[in-house]
């Protein structure tokens, strides 16, 4: 009919062609999608879906505006899952699950969405594998990662994620496009079908169409290639005839149990006696987020640096894997921190074992981004050592000798594990940064009382220290000492304030971005220097003003909210801005790693979505506002 092809629809088709996963659809399929599409408008602040409320009836694709996805845990504060902007979609999980909404979704701006109803979505899910795959990757893991980390307030690497195993039915994550073929075909034909369909398994059916066996990638590897078997043999010779099944409504952990019990990686999923899908161990791993767990366990079981080094080098890989599978970027830093912490502790443990017990109590501290728990892909060594004040010269001499060897061992160990030395030599292996507590206190007070530019620079790095191993009381004592005199040190704090206000946000008069004018990063913006560093620096300043002990920017902000009357009302915005910038940076760095480039901090604002642009501008505006507050506060000291 004529009206089916209206100009209105042409616009929508044009829009969807640029939006994954709809861009995978051909023109005809798009026409069908659009004919069933509707459109809604939500003023800013509208709650579109409510956690634990009724499930979404639609898959919504954002045409304009943006939404915030967050979870309200049983106790504690809201957990931000994601911001979604133009071209992003939401509501699939609860639409498919049909039980309840998994998260709160609120319009952060006046927002227009296209709505696709359940029947249409299910049709796409069944007929277009790329469609399902896209959503599984982009939705599920964001929830998994967030859920296992924060909702349950458990350790990052253990527990938490397991919960989804107990609450998600197999049918929900199973691949729906089961490839089938007759069991009379040859191995070569079977392999051909599998590689064409890019699937790791193939179900073979007998003359009556009843499933008779399954052949997987592993069978081809173990039973054909390695055995030198002819590919012209019948596939029935190598297929597994014991078909292990899971009911679609079984929970994932039951499926996992079966896989472990039968030592298999593929499970057929059956719904009311009908084969509806296949679930693989990879699917379950994605759900469980086991990769970092297994890595941590592997690390734990090593006893030598040589054994540790290959495991350590997997950290970046695993981070890449998590990100690739859609894990939330802002948590990646925490995963990196957790894994790096474990690795460092292990190295220190091995060092003590090899060199014997230290002559004096000591504490190994880390600082900089490690100290703030804000590491991304590339990390240098930034560490130091505090030891107990020696009572005698003999003790002093013994300590010097021991910690000299010990710190060199740790430096070399970290190097073997892929952590390059600090170019500025801020490492415990440098005698300057391997000192008794008393000397450290002198360092700190001299930096504060004589704030030369060099001293301020050092304090920026060292004041973010946190203890990692050994006697934490030493680090605590140093922290107490700093807190006891820093408050009211207006000259020193004024230096910091000056440094902060000199770093103006890169936004021009007409709210356009100011980018690099030339060179390798022409038209790009240094996110670290212009976005993240100012937030870190001002948060540190506010924390030092109030003697706050925390070192991570997020934790500092939550303390600032409690104790800093002037900054209190901005704490939440600062946190939001910081989380956002970090997220952008990690996504950017990951893209670079994916493309085989070295990760850097330069982003091109033109490549950001409108929502991202808007948020980043708001963040810069916030930085400017905070700078004004700092100027006001330190007026007599500003030059």
């Amino acid at each position, binding site marked *: 009919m*004529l*009206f089916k092809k*209206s*100009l*209105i629809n042409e616009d929508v088709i044009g829009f969807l062609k640029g939006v994954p996963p709809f861009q995978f659809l051909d023109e005809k399929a798009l026409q069908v999608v659009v004919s*069933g*599409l509707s*459109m*809604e408008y939500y003023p800013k602040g509208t709650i579109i879906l409510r956690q634990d409320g009724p499930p979404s009836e639609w898959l919504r694709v954002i045409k304009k505006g943006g939404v915030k996805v967050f979870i309200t845990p049983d106790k504690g504060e809201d957990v931000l899952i994601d911001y979604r902007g133009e071209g992003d979609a939401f509501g699939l999980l609860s639409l498919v699950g049909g039980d309840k909404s998994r998260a709160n979704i609120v319009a952060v701006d006046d927002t227009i969405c296209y709505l696709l109803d359940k029947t249409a979505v299910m049709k796409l899910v069944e007929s277009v594998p790329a469609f399902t795959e896209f959503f599984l990757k982009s939705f599920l893991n964001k929830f998994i990662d967030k859920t296992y980390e924060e909702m349950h307030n458990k350790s990052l690497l253990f527990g938490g994620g397991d919960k989804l195993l107990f609450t998600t039915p197999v049918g929900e994550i199973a691949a729906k496009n089961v490839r089938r073929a007759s069991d009379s075909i040859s191995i070569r034909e079977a392999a051909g079908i599998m590689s064409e369909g890019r699937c790791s398994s193939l179900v073979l059916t007998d003359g009556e169409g009843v499933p008779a066996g399954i052949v997987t990638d592993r069978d081809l590897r173990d039973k054909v290639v390695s055995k030198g078997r002819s590919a012209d043999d019948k596939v029935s010779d190598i297929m597994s005839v014991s078909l292990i099944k899971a009911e679609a409504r079984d929970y994932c952990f039951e499926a996992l149990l079966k896989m472990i019990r039968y030592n298999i990686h593929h499970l057929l999923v059956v719904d009311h006696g009908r084969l509806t899908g296949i679930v693989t161990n990879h699917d379950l791993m994605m759900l469980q987020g086991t990769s970092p767990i297994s890595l941590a366990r592997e690390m734990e079981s090593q006893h030598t640096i040589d054994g540790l080094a290959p495991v350590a080098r997997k950290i970046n890989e695993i981070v890449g894997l998590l990100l690739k599978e859609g894990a939330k970027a802002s948590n990646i830093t925490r995963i990196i921190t957790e894994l790096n912490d474990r690795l460092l502790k292990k190295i220190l443990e091995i060092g003590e074992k090899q060199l014997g017990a230290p002559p004096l109590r000591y504490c190994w501290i880390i600082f900089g981004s490690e100290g703030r728990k804000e590491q991304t892909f590339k990390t240098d060594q930034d560490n130091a050592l505090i030891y107990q004040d020696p009572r005698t010269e003999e003790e002093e001499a013994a300590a010097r000798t021991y910690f000299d060897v010990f710190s060199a061992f740790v430096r070399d160990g970290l190097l073997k594990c892929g952590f390059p030395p600090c170019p500025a030599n801020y490492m415990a292996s440098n005698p300057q940064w391997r000192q008794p507590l008393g000397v450290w206190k002198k360092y700190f007070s001299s930096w504060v009382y004589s704030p030369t530019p060099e001293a301020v620079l050092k304090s920026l790095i060292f004041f973010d220290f946190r203890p990692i191993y050994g006697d934490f009381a030493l680090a605590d004592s140093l922290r107490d000492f700093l807190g006891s005199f820093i408050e009211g040190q207006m000259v020193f704090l004024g230096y910091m304030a000056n440094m902060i206000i000199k770093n103006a946000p890169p936004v021009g008069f007409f709210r356009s971005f100011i980018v690099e004018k030339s060179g390798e990063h022409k038209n790009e913006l240094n996110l670290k220097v212009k976005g993240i560093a100012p937030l870190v620096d001002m948060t540190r300043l506010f924390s030092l003003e109030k003697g706050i002990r925390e070192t991570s920017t997020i934790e500092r902000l939550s303390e600032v909210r409690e104790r800093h009357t002037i900054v209190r009302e901005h704490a939440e915005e600062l946190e939001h801005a910081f989380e956002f910038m970090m997220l952008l940076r990690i996504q950017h760095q990951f893209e670079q790693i994916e493309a085989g480039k070295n990760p850097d901090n330069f982003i091109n604002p033109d490549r950001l979505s409108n929502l991202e642009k808007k948020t980043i501008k708001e963040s810069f505006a916030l930085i400017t506002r905070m700078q004004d507050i700092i100027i006001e506060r330190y007026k007599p000291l500003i030059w």
Partner: protein
Amino acid sequence: MPAMTVRKERKSAAAIEDSRFVVIDTELTGLDERRDSLVSIGAVRMQGGRIGMGDTFYRMINPRRSLTSESVLIHGITPSEVETKPAVDVVLREFLEYCGDDIIVGFCVSIDMGFLGREAERLFGHAVGNPAIDIQRVFEWLLGRGFFPGGAGVGLPRRYQLYDIARYFDIEVNGAHNALIDAFITAQIFQRFIPAVVRAGIKRSEELVGISRKFKGGERQHYFSGMFGF
């Protein structure tokens, strides 16, 4: 085409989110109800605040009166284009079938209803019975209550048209125009109104019908969409 809805006693008594609306726009050879006639009808259906992108109606009509050079310029519909189109009788029948008993929504809808009513009268002996909502009236009503940024419609010309309201709400009005696209624009404007009228305490569609009938508007005047002679 969607199935007809089951007739309820009074459609306009339903809650806004449960109401079905047909948002229309017509193109005319001129404004004189006795001499001029319909050139095209465009419509988009809404269920509450949801616009059905695939559930639209658009027909060109072979007008009884020959197109004037003015109307050709405005609508871009040339005589040769409409010569081959069905007569108003066929199109009106289809259109009323499409409408069912949904509430009709339009910008200065009384004009559209006037022309549609005249044709219906001639064909079936009675006017179009659907209740109607005029978004221009609703807009004035909301402005008068201080809704929307700028309060009293800052940035709107004193005599505004459909597109001025659209631009006011940042709704895209670029590209070619016909009755369907204008109906779609009208629907998007109406869509923006819904959260506002709900905040204003209006729950049922009949209240909007009432506002459209009684409310005479603010001080500002408006142009009728795509009109001439004013």
